């Protein structure tokens, strides 16, 4: 299949009317002794299963005999003390086997990742609408769901905090305030020739993974339990289940073969459903499965943080920024969850790609009576970047300069290359080359003239154009998470089994790591069997997150494979009387000089010689340090870069809009798999576009989420994506010693969609040039019409 896919996999964009072109631009040329399997566009490891419905997700696993189905009883109020909970009608409902409450928890009623501030089942108080209060175990899922609605719950309800302003008024937060910066910002602002103040509201985002949260727990001997969970973080599931059940971690195994999407939504927030299934399994002694209904999933699981950003910016007549003073007010929901890291990353990306001679970057983590907001692809970065892109647009309006010129004037450059947190930007040449390259390839300047000419004609319809950069830091900012393990077995027939701590959520991680292992052994990819991620093969893993999956697990697997390969090379060398270094592994053969044998024959020979054909591999990212307390060090191994140019058409009478063309130039280093990377770029862009346009979370004043299903919460569909969508990989090779000099790709492309938001603002700016555009995110038709009205249009 590989040979056959080479031809097809390397061409793209059929049907778009443009000539096909290679997708692996930027890949290392092959031939000679060059790599065979990496830098190559293989399909997703499960693609052939996906298209036949033969890939099993959690709910597709054959249930053990006697499995019970679970449903969650949910809070009818957003904030208050639990006065009474009468569950007799629930117990009496048909099919119900058991009702489980907080009192049934043998261990600690705590599912928080760190702080101990979040319950598995509410015990004394509720803190958001829909919060889990009890659990029903029944013979069918339908029976469990029906029974779960029968609880008679009384809450002494208080007014909930729903907005930033509610939380500010109450002065409640989930974590202490935090700030860092450089220089004397107050003085720099005073000294600046011009100053602007702005405020931007940024909405949250629901992950809308197509596979909802699900878990199946199967009890074993001596209190042991096996939990199948759709999770990005099997180790955290293991820890939380052990904590809830009051058993050692060693009694809990968590396994996941694949998720039907996750995007950060199953990093910390898959644990609750796994823990509930485990608790019910413990209490009933039977296998228990919990799969959330979509509406309940919306209500019960956290989202991208919504923010209010207040900023002041000092700049000169050319639009060059001298000072940036910014406060990020994040709605974290009712508990801390991952808000420390998320909002820190907002701060780390407050500069995006721009040098800020003086900066004060401050944040508040506000407590609201909403579901606890959590990781979401970009992990706070998108909000930090969007704010400064808005500020760059403001500067452009006020100085009368093209927004692209303002951006280029402020771009990191040699000598102007230190971030507000003190880390040097080492690849300013890459950043500038991408911006200027895209400016040329997108025809920005000519199209700018066309857009301006169109808008000069007046009328309701306006066009807008924007070209925005992305610079995204790669590494967990919680430094200890930057480690990974792998386990590789070679069998005596030469087939290989691969396991590592990373999870597969569609991003192609399993395929990329298998490519690395096939490369190492010089065998065909079909000889490498990928197995499910499980805590009993590779322990103490980090979540698959922070875009770091292939960087970390690819390296760990390479270490494991090369350990075995060295042992095998030793045997071959002894057999043939050559140096170990002379032994080559390629095309399923092992050779040195004139001697050769198959990889399988060598594996058999090794076994005969009592050589261990299994090895673990371990990797920790070098060269990173970050001390949060003093705000010093180097939080990131490297930065990934990209830029996007978007053009839109806006109807200022209704606020409806269309993205008409998108050009992207993105840096993935030397791509491990160009097809997968382009998929991440396109998919990330479209997901970011949804966040900034049609996806709107609306809460009622009583804290209920009103947009709790795809009928009311609108993610992009096919027709929202422009037919003219041009994505190129920037030819590059990582400067740090990453896995085959590739760069991380999972999250950075989300922020390429800032170009869409800025293009919409650009269209509106034509209504009243010279004034900042009062547009908030998401730019729904309503938000756009409101901005148009404020600028004298919209009628």
């Amino acid at each position, binding site marked *: *299949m590989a040979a056959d896919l080479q031809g*097809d996999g390397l061409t*793209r*964009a*059929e*049907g778009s009317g443009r000539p096909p072109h290679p997708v692996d631009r930027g890949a290392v040329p092959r031939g000679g002794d060059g790599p065979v399997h990496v830098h190559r*566009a293989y*399909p*997703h490891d499960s*693609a*052939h*299963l*996906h*298209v*036949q*419905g*033969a890939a099993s*997700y959690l709910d597709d696993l054959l249930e053990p005999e006697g499995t019970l189905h679970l449903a969650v009883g949910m809070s009818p109020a957003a904030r208050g003390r639990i006065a009474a909970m009468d569950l007799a009608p629930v117990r009496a409902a048909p099919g119900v086997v058991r009702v489980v409450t907080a009192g049934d928890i043998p261990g600690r009623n705590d599912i928080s990742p760190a702080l101990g501030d979040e319950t598995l089942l509410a015990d004394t108080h509720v803190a958001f609408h829909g919060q889990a209060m009890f659990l029903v175990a029944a013979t069918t899922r339908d029976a469990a*769901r029906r029974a779960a609605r029968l609880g008679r719950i009384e809450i002494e309800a208080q007014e909930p905090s729903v907005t930033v302003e509610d939380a500010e008024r109450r002065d409640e937060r989930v974590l202490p305030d935090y700030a860092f910066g450089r220089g004397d910002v107050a003085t720099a602002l005073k000294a600046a020739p011009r100053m602007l103040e702005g405020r931007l509201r940024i909405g949250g985002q629901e992950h809308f*993974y*197509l*596979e*909802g949260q699900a878990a199946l727990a199967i009890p074993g001997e001596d209190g042991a339990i096996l939990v199948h969970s759709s999770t990005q973080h099997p180790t955290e599931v293991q820890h939380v289940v052990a904590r809830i059940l009051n058993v050692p971690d060693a009694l809990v195994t968590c396994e996941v073969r694949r*998720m*039907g*999407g996750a995007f950060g939504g199953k990093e910390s927030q898959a644990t609750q459903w796994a823990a509930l299934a485990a608790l019910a399994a413990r209490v009933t002694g039977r296998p228990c499965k919990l799969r959330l*209904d*979509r509406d309940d999933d919306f209500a019960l699981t956290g989202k991208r943080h919504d923010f209010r950003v207040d900023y002041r910016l000092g700049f000169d007549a050319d639009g060059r920024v001298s000072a940036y003073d910014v406060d990020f007010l994040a709605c974290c929901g009712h508990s801390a969850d991952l808000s420390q890291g998320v909002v820190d990353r907002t701060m780390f990306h407050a500069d995006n790609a721009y040098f800020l001679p003086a900066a004060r970057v401050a944040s508040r983590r506000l407590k609201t009576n909403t579901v606890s907001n959590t990781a979401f692809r970009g992990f706070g970065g998108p909000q930090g970047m969007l704010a400064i892109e808005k500020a760059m647009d403001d500067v452009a309006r006020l100085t009368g300069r093209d927004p692209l010129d303002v951006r280029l004037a402020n771009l990191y450059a040699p000598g102007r290359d230190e971030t507000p947190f003190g880390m040097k930007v080492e690849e300013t040449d890459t950043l500038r080359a991408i911006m200027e390259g895209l400016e040329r390839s997108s025809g920005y300047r000519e199209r700018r003239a066309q857009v301006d000419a169109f808008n000069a004609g007046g009328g*309701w*319809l306006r066009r807008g154009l924007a070209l925005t950069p992305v610079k995204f830091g790669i590494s967990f900012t919680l430094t200890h998470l930057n480690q990974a393990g792998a386990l590789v077995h070679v069998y005596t027939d030469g087939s290989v089994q691969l396991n590592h701590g990373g999870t597969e959520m*569609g991003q192609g991680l399993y395929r990329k790591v298998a490519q690395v292992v096939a490369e190492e052994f010089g065998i065909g990819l079909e000889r490498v069997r990928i197995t499910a991620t499980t805590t009993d093969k590779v322990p103490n893993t980090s979540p698959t997150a922070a875009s770091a999956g292939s960087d970390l697990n690819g390296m760990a697997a390479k270490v494991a494979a090369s350990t075995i390969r060295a042992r095998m090379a030793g045997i071959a060398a002894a057999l043939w009387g050559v140096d170990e270094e002379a032994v080559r592994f390629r095309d399923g053969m092992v050779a040195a000089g004139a001697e050769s044998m198959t990889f399988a024959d060598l594996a058999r020979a090794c076994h005969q010689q009592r050589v261990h054909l299994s090895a673990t591999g371990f990797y920790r990212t070098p060269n990173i340090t970050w001390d949060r307390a003093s705000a010093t060090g180097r939080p990131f191994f490297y930065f990934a870069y990209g830029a996007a140019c978007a053009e839109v058409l*806006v*109807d200022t*009478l*209704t*606020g*409806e*809009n269309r993205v008409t063309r998108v050009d992207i130039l993105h840096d993935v280093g030397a791509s491990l798999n160009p097809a*997968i990377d382009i998929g991440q770029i396109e*998919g*990330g*862009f*479209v997901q970011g576009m949804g966040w900034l346009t049609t996806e709107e979370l*609306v809460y009622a004043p009583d804290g209920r989420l009103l947009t709790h*299903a*795809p009928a*009311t919460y609108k993610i*992009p*569909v*096919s*027709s*929202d*994506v422009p*037919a003219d*969508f041009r994505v190129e990989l920037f030819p590059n090779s990582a400067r740090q010693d990453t896995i085959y000099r590739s760069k991380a790709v999972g999250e950075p492309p989300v922020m390429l969609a800032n170009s869409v938001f800025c293009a919409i603002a650009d269209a509106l700016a034509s209504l009243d040039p010279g004034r900042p555009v009062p547009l908030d995110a998401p730019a729904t*038709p*309503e938000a756009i*019409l*409101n901005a148009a009205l404020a600028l004298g249009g919209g*009628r």
Partner: protein
Amino acid sequence: MRDVIRFVRRGQVVEVSDFHPRTTLLDWLRLTDRATGTKEGCAEGDCGACTIVLRRLRNGAPVVEPVNSCILFLGQADGAEILTVEDLGDPDGRPAGASGEGLHPVQRAMVDMHGSQCGFCTPGIVMSLFALHETAPGPVDRRAIDDALAGNLCRCTGYRPIADAAARACGPERAPPRPLPTFPEADPERDVFVGSDETFFAAPASEASLAALYARHPDAVLVSGATDVGLWATKALRDLPKIIWLGRVAGLDAVEDDGATLTLGATLTHARALPLLAGLDPDIGELLRRFGSVQVRASGTVGGNIANGSPIGDLAPVMIALGAEVELRRGDEVRRVPMEDFFIAYRKQDRRPSEFVRAVRVRRPGRDAAFRCFKVSKRFDEDISAVMGAFHFVLGEAGGERVIRSARIAYGGMAGIPKRAALAEAALAGAPLSSRKAWDLALDAIAGDFSPMSDQRANAAYRGHVARNLLLKALTEVAGASTDRTRIVGRRPPELEAAHGR
């Protein structure tokens, strides 16, 4: 009478009688048939992960329809062949291995073009594209692909590779269509009744049987396409012990066109109504193109959309603006009600116990008429309107000037029911067509016609502005402006731009 439902599954006729009437086809597939390739993504017909294909004979001709199995009741599959993602490749149902031998061309193209990432939406997308493969008259362009995929959400890929896969699989060198199975012997005259008097799934074969059964069981729920009632089962968790499905009632989907009046039978699906209504005006065609999705239009019906009385059902404002009537039947009694009088209050209609919607009768706009309608929603495709406006002007000449003789203007999303803008209509009656002064009176009158509400789709102020602006847009276009200058989607064909274009 027949007391089982029958359908074709993997070449065999399957008879089922032991099922709760509210059982969905998806649950039957996943829990009973153990065909877990078809996924549940939302259980409300919006994400398309559960898309399967039903093939059946309609008036002797084969039809191929993708449907959302999550909100389709099992009984609605009666008479059809159920095709799922597992069925497309190897005829024995064995999954093809990594070599991809035996994949259907749609599946093959999805693999080759990298059209899946997490893979959870993929079975539904494959089935939507399979339906496109079987039904598209020629090679498909991106617009046709977007329409085919409007009901399938993918959160991973950004759709580009899926669109490329569709273009390849449904291109000029298309594989021949799948041969038809042997369907169960047709018995169109037989009523179907599965269950007891307390709990049943019934599919009467004639209007007379329907009227009699409904008279006996006024507490039964009438189901047409189930695109709304399905959610009563999956989301509201209602019991629904008595379901009467209208899909077998002979003649209830009939179409009559005497040149002046178009009569659409209640169970005519949106898919089948689309070309007929588009013939009244291209704006209605565009509206219906954006109505739900291919899956929803294949199931949902004209009568269901009206009988449901949703304040945001997009057909109602169009019908009201065109002066349509609803035809109702109870027992042997048939009556007609003007559409605007049928809607009484939020989710309350002028429909008596045991009375059912029989047909919708709509008069063709005259040669002196100009019609426009606009749907405004957060997302263009597969979204419910924040505001929907329909404008029907009868034009003439007076004193050498073009005038608006009369106007019928109706909105959805502006009140608890679809409602006419009486004050705005009055302000325009007799006014010169190009008089900005008359326009302003009418535009201002909108504020008096409606007190819209705020909800998750839009705030009241936005609805008010948009309602006003849509009238402005309609007047501007009818007065002669090209839709190139007034619209970003759904532009009209040049020959239908002007007021007297038809």
